[in-house]
């Protein structure tokens, strides 16, 4: 086990320049803005004297590398600045919003797998048969629907007409949230399941053609038990790496979906910050999303190695 995971320190080291680069991009975003943060904070009330005072206070009179150093130093202390519009520390706002967005992301991941596994199995059981063509057509359509539009259509169907689910908002207890987050999570699940279905379908087809499945069949295994015991685990391995990449995509998608369903997560925070020109908050959310994707990338690599049966065999024999 230890030997198998010995790549982890190297992988972590490899992530260091990327993390560094992410902070650099987020830092330089501020310098692409027309004017500077001092102008943005003071707005119409700016006088030359007050602008100068604020610039000194924010360190904007220093050379750019010193400003970046200050930015990094603040970052390590968890200081992401003060939100212009809320007049509260940005870190506080971001940490309040993270659990909301993460529940949405995880819930939609679960729903996406619940949609994708059966559909991929159906498609793979008869390549190029009508059921396969139907599933493949669904993946093309699913890929071509704007996420927010899917959300609006689900609201139209399930909330307005059938009244099964609320139109939007966020509940008070975890159980409540499952109910409130169902439609938004389903929306995101519909938009990412085409990728899962394609991946699972092609790996299932290749597993179904393998010798060990032929052996299992010759011993009488068939149908759902064959799929569960012999096919799914092996076919799922390539999809693990896709789950990692998709998590980043889901965070991006949740920005828009949170607006559609009025969910108080990172997306709403980000969009409100954009509408109010609240730059520190925009910067903080972007930074969090970037770091999240980097961390998920590392975790995906670890999970992939841990799950890969070929690596498993080099350690000790599996029971």
């Amino acid at each position, binding site marked *: 086990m230890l030997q198998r995971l010995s790549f982890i320190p190297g992988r972590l080291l490899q992530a260091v320049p990327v993390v560094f680069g992410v902070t650099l991009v987020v830092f330089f975003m501020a310098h692409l803005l027309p004017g500077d943060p001092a102008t943005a904070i003071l707005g119409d009330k700016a006088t030359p004297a007050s602008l100068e005072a604020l610039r000194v206070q924010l360190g904007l009179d220093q050379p750019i590398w010193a400003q970046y150093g200050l930015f990094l130093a603040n970052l390590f202390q968890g200081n992401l600045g003060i939100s212009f519009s809320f007049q509260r520390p940005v870190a506080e706002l971001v940490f309040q919003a993270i659990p909301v967005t993460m529940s949405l992301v995880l819930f939609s991941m679960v729903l996406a797998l619940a949609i994708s596994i059966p559909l991929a199995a159906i498609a793979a059981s008869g390549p190029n048969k009508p059921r396969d063509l139907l599933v493949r057509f669904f993946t093309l359509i699913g890929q071509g629907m704007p996420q927010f539009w899917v959300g609006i259509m689900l609201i139209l169907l399930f909330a307005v007409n059938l009244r099964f689910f609320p139109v939007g908002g966020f509940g008070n207890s975890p159980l409540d949230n499952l109910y409130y987050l169902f439609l938004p999570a389903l929306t995101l699940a519909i938009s990412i399941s085409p990728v899962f279905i394609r991946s699972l379908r092609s790996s299932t087809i290749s597993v179904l053609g393998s010798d060990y499945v032929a052996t299992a069949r010759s011993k009488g295994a068939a149908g759902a038990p064959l799929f569960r015991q012999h096919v799914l685990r092996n076919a799922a391995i390539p999809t693990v790496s896709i789950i990692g990449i998709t998590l980043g995509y889901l965070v991006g998608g949740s920005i*828009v979906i949170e607006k559609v369903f009025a969910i108080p997560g990172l997306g709403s925070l980000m969009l409100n910050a954009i509408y109010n020109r609240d730059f520190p908050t925009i910067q903080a959310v972007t930074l969090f999303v970037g770091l999240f*994707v980097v961390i998920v990338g590392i975790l995906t690599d670890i999970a992939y190695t841990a799950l890969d049966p070929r690596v498993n065999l080099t350690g000790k024999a599996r029971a």
Partner: protein
Amino acid sequence: MSSPTFLLVGFQARRRAKARSRSLKPWYRNTPLVAGMIVVGLLILLAIFAPLIAPYDPIAQDLGATLQGPSAAHWLGTDKFGRDVLSRLIWGAQVDLRVGFLAVLIPFVFGSILGAFAGYFGGWFDAIVMRIVDVFFAFPFLVMVIVLVFILGSGETSIYLAIAAVSWVSYVKIVRGEVISAKEQDYVVGARLGGMSNARVLFRHIGPNVFSQAIIYAMSDIVMNIMGIVTLGYLGLGIAPPTAEWGSMILEGQEFITTHWLQATVPGLMVVITSLGVSWLGDGLSDLLSPERRK
């Protein structure tokens, strides 16, 4: 940019290898290609001839006839300003198709060239380029496009720049990978042994064989760009009103979802049809351009 569409190229390549025997047929027997050409062709005609096809001026308001249902005069009804929804839908094709297709050009050219150099020369240049690519891959497409459009200010130019700044990385990865595997092939080794210059080998011998993958990916990139522009429109960060654009039409329609559901539904259907057409085109091209076919 981390988007799952990036992964689809791999699947298409795998599928293509399986379909090797199928791909030896004339282009007009290539069903997805023909279907894609018909759908995309019709949409482009619709966009070009919008002034002739649309029954009304897309931004002309008629405050005496707001929020009407479908009728003989207004097939899809009118919006809250009394503008004809069908006409706005037709004119919207202009903006959304233009941005979707044109926004591919800069990242395609820039990313492909950079990826070709990185893959061909390797070494420290490759290492630096790939670390930069890793950094940009950390930001999801939508997050980065939204932030960049905010920073650069609203308007079509900003949207092109924002999309370009995000999506070049995929082309680097694809072309770099293709160039690295092409470098080992006999025809490249032969050309280099024959004393040809690096530039000649790269552009005359490797280029035509590796860019087909980038072209195939460009089709899913167009779909993603269209998603990007309609999403910006929906968030109120896209093309400024009153210009007709599908995303902002959905935003305006959402307000009246309980009473006039057509208004938010129909522009979305246009996006779905467009994406479907472009995806078919991509599938068809991947059959047509597969290197196996040239042998």
